[in-house]
């Protein structure tokens, strides 16, 4: 059973195609990362899923209900945090959550306990009666998560929930999101690939409105893994990178200070020849390591095929 299903979802603005026949399936209870460069169509897709925009063609369903035909019912099971949320600054955090709960048809007697529970969950229990106008960006980010889960939705859609947070705020919010695994389906878009790598079970990568890949992170790394070597020498690494680049079994060699990151096309040859070449010019070898590709390596490779390994 899928919590979110998109079938041929398309959105056009005049002559611009924001999303082009997007097919997605998000398993129930999973934490799903939605990635793509700026302008890839992520926010457009998210607004359609949140029933705020209409697709030009195709459809999507949340918990088995069409977002175009049963928007009202979808909103009952959906928690949504927009990319740049704004709050009524005159309200206290508790008042705002009770207001959000009332709009989501939470019975009156349950609103206050639910607000207290949500505030505790996001670490704002002590700030319950403080006006939102005096909150920091991090506190507002956490309040945004709290309002999205106040009615215990089956599906939460979070558009860049950590982009405005400092490292500590990000860590806290990611911990909250990770804690929802198995009980709530979380559909999460973010530019911070380390965060996605840390909390998500599956990812979909979008570029120019089209889905490039949807896969579990583990399988994605297996599937798109390219042997990567890191060579650190005592000397400046630019000349070593330049001497390695012409070899046909090397996809790319990038210098960064005294380190060269080498992406190999032929693993066996790289394992055989790289140590020798690293020492060829009389370099002093400090570190030689074969590393796993990061989600960022894969992301760059998929959305910018011509620049693979450049990151």
């Amino acid at each position: 059973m899928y919590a979110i299903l998109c079938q041929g979802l398309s959105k056009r603005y005049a002559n611009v195609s924001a999303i082009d026949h997007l097919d997605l399936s998000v398993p129930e209870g999973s934490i799903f990362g939605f990635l793509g460069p700026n302008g890839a169509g992520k926010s457009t897709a998210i607004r359609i899923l949140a029933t705020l925009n209409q697709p030009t063609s195709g459809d999507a369903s949340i918990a088995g209900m069409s977002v175009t035909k049963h928007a009202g019912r979808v909103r009952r099971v959906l928690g949504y945090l927009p990319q740049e949320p704004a709050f009524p600054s005159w309200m206290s955090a508790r008042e705002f959550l009770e207001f959000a709960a009332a709009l989501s048809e939470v019975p009156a007697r349950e609103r206050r306990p639910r607000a207290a529970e949500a505030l505790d969950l996001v670490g704002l229990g002590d700030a319950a009666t403080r006006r939102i106008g005096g909150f920091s960006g991090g506190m507002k980010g956490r309040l945004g998560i709290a309002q999205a889960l106040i009615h215990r939705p089956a599906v939460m859609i979070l558009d860049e929930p950590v982009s405005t947070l400092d490292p500590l705020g990000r860590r806290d919010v990611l911990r909250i999101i990770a804690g929802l695994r198995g009980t709530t389906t979380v559909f999460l878009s973010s530019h911070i690939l380390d965060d996605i790598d840390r909390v998500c079970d599956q990812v979909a990568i979008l570029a120019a409105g089209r889905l490039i890949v949807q896969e579990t992170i583990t399988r994605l790394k297996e599937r798109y893994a390219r042997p990567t070597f890191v060579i650190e020498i005592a000397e400046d690494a630019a000349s070593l990178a330049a001497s390695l680049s012409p070899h046909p079994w090397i996809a790319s060699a990038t210098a960064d200070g005294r380190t060269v990151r080498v992406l190999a096309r032929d693993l066996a040859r790289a394992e055989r020849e790289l140590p020798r070449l690293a020492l060829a010019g009389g370099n002093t070898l400090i570190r030689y390591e074969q590393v796993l590709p990061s989600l960022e390596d894969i992301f760059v490779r998929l959305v910018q095929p011509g620049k693979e390994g450049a990151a």
Partner: protein
Amino acid sequence: MNGYLTLTRKELRESLATYRVLIAAAVFLIAGISGPLLTHMLPDLIRHSTTGNIKIIVGKQTVVDAVDAYLSNMAQLPILAAILLAMGAVAEERAHGVGAMVLSRPIARSAYLLAKLTGYGLVLLGALALGAIAAFYYIALLFADARLGPYLAINLGLAVTLLDVLAITLLCGTLLPSGVAAGGVAFVLFIALSTLPALWSPLGDNLPMSITGHAHALLSGAWGAGDLLGPVLGGLLLAAVCSGAACLALARREV
């Protein structure tokens, strides 16, 4: 209508918390009482401000002059204040992300808009009532022959005019991307509607703005309750049409 009561309560609480009530009350109160007070003081003010051989004779000010001054004041600053207060109600919330968080919940979009109309309407009508009562107190105190009936009729015209201004401003806020644009267009539309009675009487006479143009007729008894029916119903119809159009526009609008 899902969410209407919750959203209306929020609008009213917001009016108190953001001093919207206080601002509206102050504007209407000052505009209301300054008319009859200045009218009463006008002969003395002119007598004291003229010097030497120049002599300006001002006739005795009557209740008609006082109501005229009240009406003239209430048709200007309070209308502008109504536009300024309501112009960001929809456009700014939509632009700043509050709208998205509210409209992604199981509420009717028409409830969102009608709650704003109710909330702002109650604030403006309350402020009008305050200004009108205070002004009538001074009219009755300072002038002979103050009659409540025609005065209520004139204020009924003002109330319906305010509802029209509010509905037009909310419609503009739904259609346009920013509060400033919504306020500007609403102001231009209000000016256009205000000049209609002079330009094309068949339509203009059925707008609430025409009531204020017939203040003398109302005070002298030449206009009666029956004459008010057309402008009041016309004004309510205009407010209903603008509100309906705003609901339709918001239902189709991408957030």
